[in-house]
């Protein structure tokens, strides 16, 4: 199978994720979209690793997974805390940092 198809898939996934981040209000969904983008990037890394025949891309993918896992932990904790205090998971409601 042509490895470039994986790149197309990664591009589609990344676009879906990016659009999701911009258009959705629910923090959980936005968060999932961010994960989608990260995984699209991972897919691209692995694909390039395959194309070039080196292991660098795969190693980077592992790093990304670890960082993403940490990010999930912290991010979810923040979302839960905000939900507890404000009774809302909408990202537009949490716009206090503007001033």
């Amino acid at each position, binding site marked *: 199978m042509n490895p470039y198809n994986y790149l197309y898939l990664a591009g589609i996934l990344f676009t879906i994720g*990016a659009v999701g*981040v*911009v*258009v959705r*209000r629910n923090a959980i969904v*936005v968060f999932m979209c961010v994960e989608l983008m990260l995984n699209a990037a991972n897919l691209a890394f692995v694909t390039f690793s395959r194309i070039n025949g080196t292991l660098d891309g795969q190693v980077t993918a592992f790093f990304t997974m670890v960082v993403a896992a940490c990010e999930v932990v912290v991010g979810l904790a923040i979302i839960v805390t905000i939900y507890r205090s404000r009774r809302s998971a909408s*990202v*537009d409601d*949490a*716009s*206090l*940092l*503007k*001033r």
Partner: protein
Amino acid sequence: MNTSSSLVYLIALPLIGAVTLLLGGRRTDKWGHLLATALSGGSFVVGLYQLNEMLGRATEDRAVTQKLFNWISVGDFNVDASLLLDQLSICFVLLITGVGTLIHIYSISYMAHDENRRRFFAYLNLFIASMLLLVLGDSYLNLYVGWEGVGLASYLLIGFWNQKPAYATASKKAFVMNRVGDMGLSFAIMIAFATLGTTSFAGVEEQAHHASEAALTAIGIMLVIAAAGKSAQFPLQAWLGDAMAGPTPVSALIHAATMVTAGVYLIIRSNFIFEAAPSAQLVVVIVGAITLLFGALIGTAKDDIKKALAASTMSQIGYMILASGLGPVGYVYAIMHLLTHGFFKASMFLGAGSVMHGMNDEVNMRKYGNLRKFMPITFITFGLGYLAIIGVPPFAGFYSKDGIIETAFNAGGFKGYLLGGITLLGAAITAFYMTRLMVLTFTSKARWDDDAHPHESPALMLIPIAILSIGSVASGFLFKQGDALKNWLKPVFGEHGDHHEEHLFEPIVVSAMALTAVVIGVSIALKKYQFTEVAKVAPENVSIFTRMARKDLGQDAFNEAVFMRPGQAITELAEKVDVKVIDGAVHGVGRMAIGSGSALRKTQSGFARSYAALILVGTIVLLAGIWVVTQ
């Protein structure tokens, strides 16, 4: 040239006194004045020792030097802090330390009731040390240090009673006008270094033959400006009258006997420059001639006894400057007049201080009168100084002033007649204003205020005056006797010393003319003041000349119109430029940052999604840009 290791003590002793008294503070209040007087006296003793040593050597190697340390050493430029004591400087050393010590003694009593007496003595010692450095430095640069030192001491002492704003202003005026002269001296040093490559007296004298006349004229004119500033000569004379704000001993020491004669020293020390630059020498003569009449005219109208004496000082230094522009014969008479003037003017200033002491610090002569009955010793000593300054033989001033008048006539041609006439006129006016001062103070009818109780001053004040008045009686005769001073100073002026003298008039004729001038001046003054009732308040309906003289011939008005007002206008302009242009630019940058900040702030909505969208758009634009560029 011989070296001596004890020259430094001349300067070190009073300097130690100044440092001890200034750093010791109130702890030294009890004995500070005694220490200062003793150290000044010690310096005088060292001076006498040096004179004795000098007399023991042959004429040609009487000068001694002492190298203290290597001061500046940059590449080829080397300046040692070295002292040079020759026949010229020893005259000054003995005058400064001798008169200085007497004035220290006088001040012990005069300043007894001033709670800052210790500070006063510290400044006096600082002055003595600086003045000695001025006359002992072996290069223009060393002289400059002393030159600035005496300026500082003068400033501090004029403003000694600076709780009175007018006195503080007077000290500032003196300082600022001195700065103008100092600028002349620093330019002279710079030009000398640029063209001759050295700043030492010996080096400049050696190199002067190779330099162009233009360069030497420039140095000379700059030196004249320096001398005019320090010696209160035209056109920088306006500060001296106000300098009388200082305590009277200061006026006697700094503004009559020593510091104001530093300009004469500078010109005579630089004789090799003026000999080679006749136009600069002519400027010296012109400055001296103008000032001697200028000061004398001011002196005729002053009612303040100290200001009248200050105007007289200005005029007498004009005589010295005039003489120091008339070649080797003139130099000798300039120095002789400087020394005799140091005696009689210091004695008269101290006498004026004694009068003020007895009259509740009143300085207005119209409120004096008939004081000879109450202050006999002050009257006699003052009278001796008076006879000396107007030039009655055999008192000191006769020999020195007569010499200057004679030298002026001998200048040759029209110049000789003009200068001789000016000096004779000056002598007549001197006789007039000094007689006026004597009559108003001592011999006319009493016009005291009701609370005045004139009394003779204590012995501690009278003894120094008496010693000085002995000097004002005898010094001229001693200097003139067998051409003593002339032969003494001859080696300093090199080969020029054997200048052939041409007499326009026989000396006896000149003396007769000078005495006639004196008699005319004295009789006019006697008629106007002794045999006519003197008003207690200065009359208003007087001639335009008197009014001008009372206003110092418009010197302050002139300075104000020509220098102060335009200077103020420039300052105001500079301030406007600073506020509008420079501050405007700085504030503009600030306002621009604030404005762009508040405009950009609107994009910070706080909505995470719009940020994300912006990041997305930015990334796409960036990638597109890269793509376009790399295609």
